[in-house]
């Protein structure tokens, strides 16, 4: 049973073995942890050193600082605005349009299979 568990997962053109990956992950994690140990330890907690540096501006209270989810990827949604607007218009939420899409796909498939 054990050796069955340890088989490598072969995908026809490649191999994948999660346990080997896990061992590598643990080793690298230890190395990183050691490097982290060399870091500067002599800093005073609670003073200006551990304050969030907002290029000099005063830090507002906690709720206002939380970046809301809808404006987290605003750049990305701006870039994709052309496709997102098209998709938004497509997703009307109106049942007749859902049925319309079904009839359209049915028609396209009938043509596709009928002609081919």
């Amino acid at each position, binding site marked *: 049973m054990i050796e069955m568990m340890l088989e490598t997962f072969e995908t026809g053109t490649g191999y994948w073995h999660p346990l080997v990956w896990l061992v590598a992950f643990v080793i690298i994690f230890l190395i990183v942890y050691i490097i982290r140990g060399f870091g500067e330890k002599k800093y005073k907690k609670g003073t200006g050193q551990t304050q969030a540096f907002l290029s000099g501006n005063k830090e507002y209270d906690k709720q206002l600082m939380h970046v809301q989810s809808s404006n987290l990827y605003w750049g990305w949604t701006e870039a994709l605005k052309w496709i997102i607007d098209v998709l938004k218009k497509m997703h009307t939420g109106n049942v007749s349009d*859902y049925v319309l899409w079904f009839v359209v796909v049915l028609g396209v498939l009938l043509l596709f*299979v009928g002609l081919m």
Partner: protein
Amino acid sequence: MNIVDMLLTHAPALTIAIPLLGAFLTPLISRVSEKGRNIFAIITVGITALFVFLMASEVLSNGPMTYVFGSTAATVQQSTVIRILFEVDALSIFMAIIGIILSFVAVVYSYAFMEKNTGLDKYYTLLLLMTTGMLGMMLTGDMFNFFVFLEITSIASAALVAFWTNKAKAVEAGFKYIVISTIGALFVLFAIALLYGQYDALNMAKIAQSLGISGFTFIDKIALVLLIAALAMKGGLAPMHMWLPDAYGRAPASISLLLVGATQASLYGLFRIVFTVYGDVISLPSISIGWILVLLGLITMLIGVIMAIIQTDFKRLIGYGAVAELGYMALAVGTGLTIVANADPNITLETAPFAMKAITGGLFHVINDALDIGLLFLVAGAVYYATKETSLNKLGGLARNMKYTTIFFIIGLLAVSGLPPFNGFASKLLIYESTYQLNPILSIVAILSSILLLAIFVKVLHSVFLGPALPKYETVREVPKSMLLAMAVIAGIIIVFGLFPQVIVTNLVEPAANALVNNSGYLQWLTGGF
């Protein structure tokens, strides 16, 4: 020990009969005690799970199992098969295992999740009816029986989606779901009538055999197109997916979990019809039918991912993630279909080995996605249970007092977007490598949408769990034990599938893929005389 053999011979019927019996008994038992009814529902689904695993051991060791309703043998007179017949082969038992795991976790989860709601008799009755319908769709060998179980699942799940009738959105989502399901089911019935009119048979194996003899007439093409379009709509593919985020987003979390299983049962129906019933005839002269599925899969992935970016509601976002994941399954199995079902003889499974890998990857992704998306829905339900808030913009800093839910969310997040140690990676690796060999663009789009999925769920992780502690959620406590247990069960299965993928693939997914590709095993009871 003939008790076990007796149970084994009747297992296919009992897997359907016990949840049905449980569904009818729930109103009576709730007369006795509320708690007793919840426990009874869990026990019923537990017993059904035993029967499913009993059948699994039998089917995976010695071939498909058939069960005739009404007498010990289906009478085959003048080549017409009389009586309804359940045919359980490796693929249907694979799907039944998915269905029963999801429904067991849903029942355990809703023990505490639905505690403060009223009308729980109807909730548990409908939940058990939905489990019956889903398992029936996966085990049946009769086309009309498939239609009846499809309708049972649709009606039960539409009523459950609209369970919180005080919310306008939930009732609307339920109405949209039942309208779409009814239209889909009516066109499935129309296709069944076409096939029955031509071959005087309702049994899938019989239709497959007579199709093989009489070839691919024009009526068969129309029936095939109707079935593909209707089951693709019920399976949430391509432009017909818009009911899915509404239904998943508005239903209670345990019902969204079961809806994932119901949608995948419709996809199983699509694969069963395209591969087994139309198996030997489905080759068009110039281009293969597989390209329909590949195209639908591509469009579904892109639409699902791009629409998920702009969502602000937690469960609706996971709904669009589920749509994107359905695209992967359609893409992978479609790639396999382009090789299996094409006209020119020198492209076969032997000359193009990646087709078998694509189908195995697609089926492995069916179970992985059911677990990953299911876990995310349970986490969304836990967040809703604790904070009564579903909009992502108002949530924040929940990790402080909901530690376990956050850990489960991180596991689900890493698994859904296909990161190495988890099960999503194993199946997506199979899909990337096999679709690449058919056409590189397919696997490029697949990898792209997987990265976008990771970005979207990291956004959710930040805005819901990380960030400063908001005063509004100071008093938030961790969710009760039974919900955590349900999430832990799924997270455990995800980790086990992730660390030992080859074990799962060799003795569960590969037999299912082989059963799907060559339908000789499926027809064996018919040709081998009965």
